[in-house]
């Protein structure tokens, strides 16, 4: 008890962080989320050792023996079985973990950086830039994420890279809105006004006062997005805009397995492995991020935290 007690020497922000971490890890769902995440992270990092690629220059290309469209059940050679086209599902799952992180990190990173920088500038300085940006956001806002992203993918061409790009090009609007409203709330507060009166430069105010206090909702959103973007990408694959067959992407693997969801009449679950392994990977991956996001929300929400 004594150890967790805040003492006066600690920096308040550090103390705050400790408290937050305590809150997060008091939550069993967060622990579950982080362990799942660590697992996937481990798989992604160790991918070249877990499943050595056949061609060095194309590691995401799943190896296959033969071309038969009928999936084969798990065996010693293919422990998760093979999908249509005889692609090794195990290989796809392992390298797909990298793809999933790639999708999440790229989309969230890109959207986050654009959204945060534009949102902070617009919210802090206001004026014509704010007006212009927000009208543009209004326009983009009037089309749901998937619809707009689909349109962009269609325009740029199919493929995972374009899906990622499209999602990022749509998702930034969230970050702008959230951070801008936080910044506007903070802008009017005494400590910012005081800093301004003391002649602190705008940049310094933004980095010292505004960002640290407005970043939490963004963090929560980012962690949720890490998962939901993988779902969105898999949805695009499902619609038929995704990576080519044989690319190690869970979403595409599920989407392509949909034709094998029902087996022959005498054995309806014959091809269970084609949908089960990639499906469960997506669900667990997204679940991990959502559990973390949920725990973060509980921990950061100023209205709920002190109780």
């Amino acid at each position, binding site marked *: 008890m004594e150890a967790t007690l805040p003492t006066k020497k600690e920096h308040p922000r550090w103390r705050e962080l400790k408290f937050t971490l305590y809150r997060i890890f008091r939550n069993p769902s967060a622990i579950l989320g982080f362990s799942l995440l660590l697992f996937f992270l481990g798989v992604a990092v160790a991918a070249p050792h877990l499943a050595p690629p056949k061609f060095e220059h194309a590691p995401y290309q799943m190896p296959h023996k033969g071309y038969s469209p009928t999936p084969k059940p798990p065996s010693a050679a293919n422990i998760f079985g093979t999908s249509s086209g005889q692609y090794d599902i195990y290989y796809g799952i392992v390298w797909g973990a990298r793809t999933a992180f790639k999708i999440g990190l790229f989309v969230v990173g890109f959207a986050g950086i654009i959204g945060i920088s534009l949102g902070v500038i617009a919210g802090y300085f206001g004026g014509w830039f704010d007006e212009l940006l927000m009208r543009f956001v*209004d326009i983009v806002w009037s089309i749901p994420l998937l619809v707009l992203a689909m349109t962009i993918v269609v325009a740029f061409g199919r493929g995972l890279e374009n899906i990622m790009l499209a999602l990022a090009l749509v998702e930034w609007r969230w970050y702008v809105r959230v951070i801008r409203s936080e910044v506007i709330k903070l802008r009017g507060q005494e400590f910012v006004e005081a800093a301004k009166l003391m002649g602190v430069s705008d940049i310094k105010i933004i980095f010292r006062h505004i960002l640290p206090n407005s970043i939490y909702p963004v963090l929560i959103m980012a962690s949720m997005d890490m998962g939901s973007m993988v779902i969105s990408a898999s949805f695009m694959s*499902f619609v038929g805009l995704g990576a080519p067959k044989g690319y190690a992407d869970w979403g595409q693997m599920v989407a392509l397995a949909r034709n094998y969801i029902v087996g022959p009449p005498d054995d309806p679950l014959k091809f269970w492995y084609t949908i089960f392994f990639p499906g469960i990977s997506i669900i667990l991956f997204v679940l991990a991020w959502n559990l973390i996001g949920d725990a973060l*929300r509980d921990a950061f929400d100023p209205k709920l935290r002190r109780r």
Partner: protein
Amino acid sequence: MTAYIIRRLLFLIFVLFGVSVLIFGLLMTFSPERRAAVYVTTPQQAKDIPKLVKQYGLNDPVPIQYARWVKEVASGNLGWSLVAARPVAKAFWSYFPTTLELNLLASPLVIIVGIWLGTLAGVHRDTWIDHGTRIGAIVGWSLPTFLFALVLLMIFYGYYGLFPPGIISSDTSLWVINNPDKFTRYTGMYTIDGILNGHLWVTWDALNHLVLPVLTQVIVVVALLMRVMRSGMLEELSRDYVITAKAKGADAHTINIKHARKNALIPVITVAGQLVALSMEGSIAVEVVFSRQGMGWWLAHSATQLDMPVLMSVCMFIGVVFVLSNLIIDIMYAYIDPRIQLQ
């Protein structure tokens, strides 16, 4: 109030203009030949591509093409839909009722279930009800819609032969066509038309096809509502007026329902726009999996055929629906929260 609505409608025009420019810009990333190829379906036809470019003026400067497009749209010609094999405007009227039907059935369920479960979880904070609903919401949130829909289809239709996909059984559909005097398609929605025409078995048949789509749609959308409702309830239950009510001698039911829930509904309304967007997105997957020919289905298939005119029109249409629904949400907001005045 009127002034507010008029302003919002003006805003709608602005948004439509913006969306059209945006989408048109995207369309122009295609080469003229590529856009002409939209009219081509067999290898044999490919040789006519350069002629098609000329015929449809696809090589003209972009502003001219845009102006031409606006002129066409103003005269009601939204382009040609390959998937629907008819003009976009006409196709719209045959697809829209299907989506509307789905959401007309799903939305009340979403609202009732979401608010009910969210309230329940908020009231019984940290009990098994709360944990159960929360975990349920997170898991529901983590499920790809199409996967869930496919599994439902596999189980119910694949194994039990229940709840077939599609909009209506072919027998019923055939009967409807053969008896135009007995069955008028007033709304284009079989459930409602069945009631209007007094043929309840048509409604029953249509509902039979709607069970799984509605179930999927509800589960996809309800998670968000539930979560917002729960945190709203938690927040409201910690407010002073709750203690006031308690000190008045109010029972738990009155406090939860009359006092806290009404206040907790306010943040729910702020995410209502998001719910509408979610429903639209959900409709895409649901309609594709259950082969219901609605807006979402149309959109998805147009996307795979890279049919830009349709994507453009659908985006514009969705923009209209979205802005209008936000307007309605704002009005509802003002109704629920007396502190808000629309100006």
